[in-house]
């Protein structure tokens, strides 16, 4: 497990993007989304799980995800979130942008030694 030092604090927008990415695979409960983000980043990105919920509600407000009342695996009432068409479109736009940004940062950090 990564130590506290190696955890990187995520920006809000990035978190929203990760949620969208997670839901692109299919609808999920809040807990599953949190776990997916954690696993997917090899525990590097440790999100305080609570901060997921403001992100989810932001996305609902924007209309990029939708929700339904459902039952979780341990028979508790919880919302199930899914991507909307609008959200899918936003995801592709953001993915491109994110990739370009990541690429730019990488190039800055490790300049190709040319000169």
């Amino acid at each position, binding site marked *: 497990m990564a130590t506290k030092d190696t955890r990187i604090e995520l920006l809000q927008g990035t978190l929203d993007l990760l949620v969208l990415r997670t839901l692109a695979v299919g609808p999920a*409960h*809040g*807990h599953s989304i*949190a*776990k997916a983000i954690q696993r997917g980043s090899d525990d590097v990105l440790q999100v*305080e*799980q*609570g*901060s997921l*919920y*403001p992100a989810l*509600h*932001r996305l*609902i*407000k924007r209309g990029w995800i939708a*929700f339904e*009342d459902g039952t*979780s*695996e*341990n028979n*508790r*009432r*919880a*919302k199930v979130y899914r991507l909307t068409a609008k959200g899918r479109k936003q995801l592709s736009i953001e993915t491109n942008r994110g990739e370009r940004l990541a690429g730019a940062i990488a190039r800055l950090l490790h300049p190709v030694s040319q000169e």
Partner: protein
Amino acid sequence: MWRRRRPLDGLDDDIEAHIQHETDDYISRGVAPEEAHRLARLAFGNVGIVKEDVRALWHRAWLGQLRQDVTFGVRLLRRTPLFTCAVVLSLALGIGANTAIFSLLHAVALRPLPVENPEGLWKVGDRYPYAAFRALAGDETVLASVAAASGVRLNVSIDGAPEPTVDGQLVSGNFFRLLGIRPVLGRAISPDDDRTPNAHPVVMLSHEYWASRFGREPSTLGRLITISGTPFTVIGVAPPGFFGIEVGTAPSLFVPILMQPTVVPVLGNPPRLITGQFRVLTRLRPGVTAAQATAALENRVHGWLEREMSGRANLSRFGDSVRAQLIGVNLWPELSPAATGFSNIRDEFSRPLLILMAGVGILLLIACANTSNLLLARAAARQSEFGTRQALGASRWRLTRQVLVESLVLAGLGGLVGVGLAHWATRFLVVFISRGQTPVVLDVAPDARALAFTAACAVITGVLFGVAPALRATGRRMVPKLRVPTSRSGTHLRLVPERLLAVSQIALSLVMLIGAALFVRGLMSLDGRGGGAAQREVIVARVEPAGSYSRRRPPETLVRIDREYKNLLERIHAMPGVRSASLAEYSPANPGGIYRRVTTPSGTEVQVHQPMVYPRYFSTLGIPFVEGRDFAPRDLEEHSPPVAVVNETFARLFFGRTSAVGQPCRVMATDSAMPCQIIGVVRDSPYADITGDVEATMYQPFLQTDTNRGMMVLHVRTSDDPRSVIPALRDALQHAHPTAPQFAIQTIADELDAVLVRQRLLATLGTVFSLLALLLAGVGLYGLFAFIVVRRTREIGLRLALGAGRPDIARMVIGEALTLVLVGVVLGSAGGVVLARLATLRVALLLPTVDARDPLAIAAAVVTLLTVAGIAAYLPARRAARIQPMDAVRANC
């Protein structure tokens, strides 16, 4: 908005499910359940903050904070119940008084008629003669429709038994249609009932009359009601709340105008003649402006006028333009908006009510100043709390907002209680202004406008007195406040804004007191003009025999009426409890009578007041004879020589020291000059003109004057309680004139109540409000100096320990307080006098005998104020003098 709610539902469940899930994960990895739960919660983070963040996302941020502020504020207020009660009560008085007066003003002057589209109604002139109305009604070009109405008193009997006289309205055929009023039962009076004079004996009931007299029986439709001896059929009932177009009245019956000759027998009109003045209402054709309509109607009316007069009157003396001529004869068809209908009450009470509104406005300001001072004091005490919060990052605006919200909560509470007070007060006021006359009927139920006014009052009040404390509490000097307060020297506690507020409170209270004192003095002087004991012993009642008011009247009618009067007087003289009775043209409280030119032997020609009376008038009223004799029955024979009785003023003016008795005069009548001989001189009547000066008066017997009017007022002097005689009088009048309406039978004192009601209103309410204002100012002064004394406890204790005497301490405090009071008194006196002078021109018509610089009134006001202020200053001084030095040194302020 409902859509947004759903995401928030179940948030708690979502979070719980999440944490439980995480817990299960840990458990499945072998962690003990309790530890698993703890780790899960740790991983989740602060649940409370998450929930708050999500909620804040959906609500606007400020809404949540507002709820916070309100809750906090309410809790704070509950912790200091005495303070809260005092503030809420003083605010309630201020807001309540304002609401009450405004409600009355609104009901009298601002409320639109309860009809369809009142904004589209126009009135033509003030009152219009019937014939002119008919000329207008024919116009189809600019007027969509024209209706007329006028109030009448109706003599009613049902199934042979006489009923109490009711107020009614004569209405034209399209009256109800114009107003858009649909009956709840039967049909309304329609143009079909407006075709032939005297041929439509139908009547509509008001809803109130139908409920009270007929118990809302549907079978009332078709019943016969006898009006002035003729049976009328009930054809319909008006909807509830409809009272016609005269605000302040509540007619019980609606009758077609063309039935006027039947139901108004006093006119004595031939059956096809409609006379009199009417209120005229109209709606304009779409696209026509009032100015256009007026211009078009002018020509129509002028044309009608010329045909009517056919050269008899010289209109050109008023000018050349049609408009000028019409204005000259009072027939200019001026159109003015009639959304609020007509109202005598409005004309009489608008000005007094506006004066009272100014007064209660000042009262509210004083209440605000009081509250502000109290809150300022409290804000100073909370500076350490606010200092801490600001140090921890709260913005000044946020804290200011919180204090403002607290103030608004106080104001809101004050407003609620105030509305309750106003409700009761308004009803009381309506009863008050109804004294001595037909009860005034006003719809004082609060409507949107009145409630909006109250709400605005409360909000403005809250902001006014909340701003200063808010700013004070969040003042910049926050860090020093956190230290333990050290001793302060007395002069450091300057409290300038509080002192200014206290001074202004004193000044404003004094202004109000002076105003009230002036009104009271004025009322006292008017009251004193009446005839003393006679007021309560003499009963008056109007009598209107058939045909007694008519333009062209054959002499036989006059003789007949005279005979009826003589019979009536005989019958009344025979009644038990009656000392003497007579008839006169008017009652003391409502002077009337004509003025005629009279030529004295010396050749002087003057205009003189000439009322008609019967014998024994003077003795009935208690007016003594200076010389000569009263009219005797022989002076009332048809061909007896004309005689007259004059008052002192007349005798003095025209005959000086010589005796007026025996002197001949000539009275200019319409066609000729009539010689008459003076047979007696009486003292000036104390009632002659209750609000004016005494004038030269010549009394003549009924048959000898040449006048249109034959209606008289019965005067009866009783030996017992007047109330015991009234029923017998009523019977006698009913018997004498079975088809004439009856008028109120009351004592002169009661009548005077009605005449002086405005002055009484101003004097009573003025006194109440100004005393309230003074009380508030006194409480404010006391509060301020009590606070000062508390803050300076250490200093005072030190002074005492160092040898100062207790009286010195007390003197110090009182001295400071009285300085403020004196400044306030000076400002207030100056302000009061200036205001009274400015207002004199307007007030003069209400109180002609009052001088704005009346020293007695000002002295009374100042003395009252100094008394209350003295007490307010003395109490804290006493407390200061009682301070024990040891307690003071230990005090930690």
